[in-house]
């Protein structure tokens, strides 16, 4: 079907997701919006190479991701340095109620290596399958799985929460009993 007619609209609809992904990758609002802008321009130029019926969102995420890593290479090791700073000043204190503060989570996420962060975002938040994420990142499905797994373990370690995925009635009960306010 004719892709060009709805192409602009399709791009517009994807922008919030692209910005979220760009923010997750770059951890910087200005850089994120630059990435999105570059992505849109590139996507527009290359729209004839997009195969209608395939996943536009995945295609756009791939362009954005390539742009991110290409910019990072251009900037050299500058990025690495700022990462070191972030890590140094990072101190996460899980609250006593066991409820994870979103800000703490954000800081923990910043601490992950890019490849792990992008993997866990694509799978756990952007809604891609392992196969799609592997295609976006240009690697094997097994690689994505292991990156997600390492990312999750690292986050759990940083945030000092239990490795159990099953937060059962115990956790809920603990919360109820702990909430003495009011």
């Amino acid at each position, binding site marked *: 079907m004719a892709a060009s007619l709805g192409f*602009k609209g399709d*791009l*517009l609809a994807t*922008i*919030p*997701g692209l*910005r*979220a992904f760009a*923010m*997750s990758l770059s951890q910087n609002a200005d850089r994120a*919006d630059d990435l*999105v*802008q570059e992505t*849109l*321009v590139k996507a*527009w130029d290359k729209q004839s190479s997009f195969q209608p019926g395939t996943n536009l969102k995945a295609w756009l995420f791939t362009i954005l991701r390539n742009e991110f890593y290409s910019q990072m290479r251009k900037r050299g090791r500058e990025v690495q340095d700022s990462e070191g700073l972030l890590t140094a000043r990072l101190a996460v204190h899980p609250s006593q109620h066991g409820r*994870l503060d*979103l800000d703490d*989570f*954000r800081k923990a*996420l910043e601490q992950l290596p890019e490849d792990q962060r992008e993997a*866990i*975002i694509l*799978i*756990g*938040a*952007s809604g891609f399958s392992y196969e799609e994420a592997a295609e976006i990142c240009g690697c094997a499905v097994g690689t994505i799985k292991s990156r*997600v*797994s390492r990312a*999750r373990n690292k*986050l*759990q370690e940083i*945030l000092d*929460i239990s490795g159990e*995925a*099953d*937060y*059962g*009635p115990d956790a*809920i009960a603990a919360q109820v009993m702990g909430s003495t306010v009011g």
Partner: protein
Amino acid sequence: MTKQTSGAASAGPNRRRDGEPLGANSEIGRKLKQYYDELVSDEVPDRFAQLLSQLEQAEPEQQKD
């Protein structure tokens, strides 16, 4: 009323989803979505719609050599 509802409804048939490290029940999975949803719901600046309109209005370029 009997107090047997707690857990039964929320736990569901698949409380353990093996091979799903980011299942809906995991704290990490929930926070990840919360973090991301906040980013997604951020208001999109006009510049992107303007950019697309500009691209749309621009004459299709000849293929470069």
